[in-house]
């Protein structure tokens, strides 16, 4: 399969936009107006972009604590996301959730919650409902490799396999859970997609920093999930560039080897792809500037919107506890 020029630009645009958004969050976090934990995904742009580029609006995505990119790639409103992080009434959850509880039902971002693994069965249940209703939708569940240590992940995979549910499991393996390396949590040589396969869900492992490959492979997989109602598991290796939670770089803490960090920085999905597209003449510096400007404009607008928005009224405190 080939990717046409426009799609390439779209993929690049999606990635660079997400990065610029989070860089702005990081920059402005110290103003102490975004008063909630933020888990930035910088470095992991290719996965959300490559997968979600294949999804339609009706398809549904669930995520966890590190959800900004999934929200954005699925078409969630930037204004509402920034407002949510600022705790404003215009936020996607009315300010009640903060960065760890993004949601945009219209866009199909159904839920993101910070209890590790907890959205996985919920996504499977939703896929089950879709299947019973014969809706030709796919549910995509994004989670970190840490989630795969939770029993509920296993229970969910079992059920998706048992009932042949149209769900795509996307495991972003960035090798760390907070500061804990994989070697403290899973045996060496574990292949997560093998685990899925042993349970009856087909799987593959991909380079999580190669956006075109992700896009192309995911296209095929998603089509087959839709056609066959069989679940699928994709494991993607990638790397988070900043600290686990918060706006900073934490390489000074030395929980990750410098050589490893350098290796992955070199594999930056955006730098690499930009080079490629420049070389292929899909992009040039003029086009790039236009893209940057456009994104900057959008970002600035969104932050202004959020900053100007009001905090929710006190009377909102006791609202919507019950439907």
């Amino acid at each position, binding site marked *: 399969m080939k990717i046409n020029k426009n799609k390439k630009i779209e993929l690049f645009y999606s990635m660079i936009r997400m990065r610029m958004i989070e860089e702005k969050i990081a920059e402005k976090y110290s103003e102490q107006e975004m008063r909630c934990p933020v888990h930035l995904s910088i470095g992991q742009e290719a996965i959300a972009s490559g997968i979600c580029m294949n999804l339609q609006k009706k398809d549904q995505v669930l995520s966890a604590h590190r959800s900004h990119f999934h929200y954005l790639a699925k078409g969630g409103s930037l204004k509402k996301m920034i407002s949510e992080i600022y705790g404003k009434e215009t936020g996607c959850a009315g300010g009640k959730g903060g960065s760890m509880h993004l949601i945009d039902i219209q866009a199909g971002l159904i839920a993101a919650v910070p209890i590790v693994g907890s959205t996985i069965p919920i996504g499977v*249940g939703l896929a089950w*409902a879709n299947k*019973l209703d014969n809706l030709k939708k796919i549910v995509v569940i994004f989670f970190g490799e840490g989630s795969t240590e939770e029993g509920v992940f296993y229970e969910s995979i079992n059920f998706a396999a048992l009932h042949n549910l149209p769900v795509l499991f996307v495991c972003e393996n960035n090798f760390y859970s907070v500061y804990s390396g994989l070697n403290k949590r899973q045996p060496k040589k574990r292949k997560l997609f093998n685990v899925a396969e042993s349970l009856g869900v087909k799987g593959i492992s991909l380079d999580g920093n190669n956006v075109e490959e992700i896009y192309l492979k995911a296209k095929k997989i998603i089509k087959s999930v839709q056609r066959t109602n069989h679940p699928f598991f994709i494991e993607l290796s990638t790397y988070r560039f900043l600290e686990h939670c918060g706006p900073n770089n934490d390489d000074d803490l030395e929980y990750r080897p410098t050589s490893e960090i350098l290796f992955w920085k070199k594999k930056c999905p955006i730098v690499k792809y930009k080079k490629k597209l420049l070389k292929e003449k899909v992009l040039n510096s003029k086009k790039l500037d236009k893209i940057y400007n456009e994104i900057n404009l959008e970002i600035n607008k969104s932050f202004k919107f959020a900053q100007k928005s009001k905090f929710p009224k006190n009377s909102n405190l006791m*609202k919507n506890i019950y439907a």
Partner: protein
Amino acid sequence: MLKKNSINKNRFIQYTQAINEALMQSMKLDKKIVILGLGVDDPKRIFGTTNNLIETYGKNRVFDMPTSENAITGFAIGMSLGKYRPVLCHQRVEFALLSMDQIINQAAKWSYMNDGQMSVPIVIRLIIGRGWGQGPQHSQSLESLFANIPGLKVVCPSSAYDAKGMLISSINDNNPVIFFEHRWLHSTYSIVPKKHYSVPIGRSKIVKKGNNLTIVSSSYMTIESLKASEILSNYGINAEVIDLRTLRPLDIKPVLKSLKKTKKLLVVDNGWTQYGISAEIITRVATIKKLNKNLAINRMGIADTPIPSTRNLAKLCYPDCLDICTEVGKILNIKFKNLYSKFKSFRAQDVPNKNFTGPF
């Protein structure tokens, strides 16, 4: 036809059948209602409560499940987001302890977390209480663990009539409802209309009028409290018995009203008393400025211990009607003569009824 039957006052049916009717009738009215749980379609049909469901509504609406309690609850939440209305069942409340994350962190907070854009209309039926030598891990009554959590509704009907009506209300409710069924209530009978009717969530009920003292209880302990009030009447004592029926949202008004009259309160807890349901009831009373003078207040409940299997220790754990009478006597400063000899036949043993021969 329906109408005729529904006014037939003599239609006594069993609690389990009442549950079954609620499910059967609700499923007929709303195709989005689905039944999930271990054994919902097996030969025993959850003590008969899921009889005929799979035959009538088919295997796309009635699902046996793997032994994966945490995920099952998540599936139910997910289905509800897809506009289904799952009714989930665990044959022992203990199994639900595996799914507290999904219940407390997710279901209870879902509506609030997204500021009302979506809600989670699921019913979780949890079977509590005693059995035949069930021992420490199959006999707990953990209502207060759920009643503490905003975002949940928690109900515990004590009669077949309420069971049917409140299960229908629970299914119709757009929020997660924890529906407690006591094993020993399953074999009780009451008059139950055949029609589809609802009993509102959030209303306690005076199940026996009286003016000498107020007994407040819930779930199976309401039965023992009623028996106690019958015995007490032999001693010239006229107790008012209030069945809470819903623990969250709690309806304390009938209790307060009753106390204006009786000035005496005994709360009979269906579980452990420490940090239990009874503590909340008493606190609601004790913190009312105009009421808290000159009241006699006490509570009782299951002994503060894991429940042993052997019958001669297990029976010591559970207060019964005679123990309730004794506590009433303490509040009223009366000693009831020959209580334990005269009314021995009222006592519950380690089985809910004579026909019970184990093993569960």
